[in-house]
């Protein structure tokens, strides 16, 4: 077997086009839908009786619909799309079985839709961040495995790897890589591809199909949510960050070792996070989890250091482009990690538990870090795979909508959560009076949600515009070819 020839970037990008259209297109639709359901959910706090006659849109169903669409509708496919492209680009290999991946993407979107309908019809599981009913689990798992399989085939077939034909040992074929190490983004993507099926199968199996008893359910649910939000999302998002920052600034990543340190600490500490401090579980579990949340600050700091060192001294203005998205993502990742680490301290978690604070840092992680990084990555990748530029002004407008929206969405929740928690600790204050200041904060955050919804709509428009323009150009080309061939035929006759 000889080394396959290195593929030109254009061929690699072209091979990614179909899968990425499927994954990013579905993700953009789901992000816009999620924003809609988020707004519907928030409206119940503005006028309690708004959906009194409509079970489907009541808070208890619109809220899980929001989280389901955001996490499974947007985050996972967007992360997979960016991850696939990174594996193909960094491995200098065309993506394997693009049709199969596109099919997997469609299947995934179907699973998300089935789950959404289930949730709205009252079939939600009741576990936060894992709201889908049991029949959606199997579809999503099948879709993920299809895409993962293709991603691994792509990664395995990377052209840097070639059999050493003139191996001195003769009989023993030895695989070597022409470069000594994988690029950090590849570690993150590969680990994420491995991580998700494991945690998803565990949660699906133990919460839906072979239900464990009693509080073991919540232990499994929180373990899953912790791994999803604090490991899987960072793994996928940082893979894109570590690619985008050096690529756009034109400076080498500072440094591989810092990235390695971030990777190792993230997987080792992050995986133990997720148990709330006052969980009705044996005390060792929240304690251990709190310690891990504190230590999970280490990878966040390493990422910040790496980002600062990489971007420092580059004179590339980011102008609301993908670089801005990635930078804001890093900052949000660090801040949300800091907020999670703060809750590891019992004195603080005593105040913040059961308040909007936790919702605040979760949305900061989801919107501020992941959605930002992934939309930035999509704006970087889509023009490359389709050859169609996105208007820079629309990208910049989307950036500012997301930034202001995210800040307005999350900061009032965090601040309101602290005041709410402080009042909850004083039994002389009536419960309704504790909820009231939080309600104010919540209403302010709705303004942020409106901006995010506008940004999501713009993102959807931009993605669809790229896809439409590409399909239009294909049709135009096909039409031109058809007419051209006809003319030649006529000329020959």
């Amino acid at each position, binding site marked *: 077997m000889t080394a396959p020839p290195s593929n030109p970037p254009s061929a690699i990008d072209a091979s990614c086009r179909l899968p990425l259209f499927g994954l990013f297109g579905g993700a953009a639709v789901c992000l816009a839908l999620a924003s809609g359901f988020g707004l519907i959910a928030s409206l*119940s*706090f503005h006028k*309690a*009786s708004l959906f*009194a006659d*409509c*079970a489907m849109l*009541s*808070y*208890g*169903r619109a809220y*899980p619909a929001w989280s389901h669409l955001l996490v499974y509708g947007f985050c996972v496919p967007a992360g997979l799309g960016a991850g696939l492209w990174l594996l193909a680009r960094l491995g200098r290999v065309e993506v394997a079985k693009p049709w199969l991946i596109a099919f997997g993407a469609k299947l995934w979107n179907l699973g998300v839709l089935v789950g959404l309908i289930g949730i709205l019809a*009252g*079939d*939600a599981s*009741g576990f*936060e961040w894992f709201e889908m009913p049991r029949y959606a689990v199997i579809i999503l798992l099948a879709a993920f495995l299809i895409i993962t399989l293709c991603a691994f085939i792509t990664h395995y077939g990377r052209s840097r790897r070639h059999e050493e034909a003139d191996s001195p040992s003769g009989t023993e074929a030895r695989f070597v*890589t022409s470069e000594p*190490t*994988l690029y950090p983004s*590849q*570690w993150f993507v*590969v*680990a994420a591809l491995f991580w998700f099926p494991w945690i998803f199968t*565990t949660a699906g199996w133990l*919460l839906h199909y072979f*239900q*464990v*008893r*009693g*509080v*073991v*359910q*919540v*232990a*499994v649910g*929180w*373990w899953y949510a912790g*791994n999803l939000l604090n490991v899987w999302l960072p793994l996928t998002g940082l893979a894109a960050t570590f690619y985008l920052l050096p690529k756009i600034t034109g400076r080498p990543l500072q440094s591989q070792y810092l990235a390695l340190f971030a*990777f190792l600490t993230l*997987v*080792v500490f992050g*995986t133990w996070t997720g*148990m709330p401090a*006052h969980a009705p*579980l*044996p005390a060792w*579990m929240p304690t251990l989890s709190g310690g891990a949340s504190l230590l999970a600050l280490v990878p966040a700091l390493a990422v910040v250091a790496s980002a600062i060192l990489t971007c420092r001294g580059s004179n590339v203005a980011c102008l609301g482009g993908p670089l801005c998205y990635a930078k804001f993502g890093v900052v949000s990742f660090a801040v949300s990690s800091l907020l999670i680490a703060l809750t590891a301290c019992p004195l603080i978690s005593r105040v913040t*538990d*059961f*308040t909007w604070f936790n*919702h605040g840092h979760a949305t900061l992680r989801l919107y501020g870090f992941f959605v930002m990084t992934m939309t930035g990555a999509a704006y970087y990748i889509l023009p490359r795979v389709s050859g169609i530029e996105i208007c820079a002004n629309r990208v910049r407008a989307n950036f500012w909508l997301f930034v202001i929206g995210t800040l307005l969405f999350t900061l009032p929740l965090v601040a309101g959560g602290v005041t709410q928690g402080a009042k909850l*600790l*004083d*039994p002389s204050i009536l*419960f*309704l009076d504790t*909820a009231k200041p*939080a*309600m104010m904060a919540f209403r302010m955050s709705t303004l942020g949600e409106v901006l995010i919804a506008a940004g999501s709509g713009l993102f959807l428009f931009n993605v669809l515009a790229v896809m439409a323009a590409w399909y239009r150009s294909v049709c135009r080309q096909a039409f031109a070819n058809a007419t051209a061939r006809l003319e030649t035929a006529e000329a020959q006759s």
Partner: protein
Amino acid sequence: MKSSALVFLTAFMALSASWGGFVLAPQIQLGRNAQAKTVPAGDLYPVARPGLANQGADVYRALGCVHCHSQQVRQDGVKCELVLTDAGTNTTATLAALGKLKPGLATAETLSGLPKTLMPLADMNAADPLLKVITGAGAKAEVHVTPTGPDIARQWGRRHTVAQDYVFDSPVQPGTRRAGPDLANVGARFPDRNWHLRHLYAPLAEVANSTMPPYRFLFEKRPVGSGPVPDALALPAGFAAEPGFEIVPTDAARALAAYLVSLRADSPLFEAPVTLPPAPATTAAK
């Protein structure tokens, strides 16, 4: 990292460690939990919910009530007190024994108006030698345990919630947010199912300034007289249906109300001791 295998190995080791810790270990520690005995009464706890309440748990899940209501009571600590319940026949010996515990107690006033709190204790274990002295003199004493904390002071429960409370729940929904009050003991606070039905239909009718959304879709408006409906809601003016109509709960509403009434987690357990006020002989140290 040189190879993907190394990445795999790292991820595998990290994830299997936490899987073992947070999935396997709790299953081994708690996965086979069944009914336990209350201390000291020895009743079995928890008791499985009756059928309608069990259906109500499903309604609770389907409506996503968990997103606004927790079912977890926290406590900061416990207040232990030594309480003299019986002075015995030999009051001289009792007084002498009390004098040994604390000199100021050896007065006749201590023996009047029993049960009487003798002294606060650091913890339950501190009571054993003191009880020995008192019972040696023929008197009787108990340790009263009162959990403390803001949740308890809000009367959301008598003790903190522990794993044992959720043995029969599926899905277990302890909740992470309190946009509304905690419901772990709502059945003890509001034992009337009709109150819950009225509150579900129109929260403002029962709780002034309530921020809870009304769940009108769980009820039907029917013309009066089309059939005898014993549990039509008796709503205050301003919330009731127009004359000639009545508000009748659906099966889902009835089940949900039955579930809410069944929510009660205050039995004294070994891991969560509490002295219930009306019961005279609970939690006496043996």
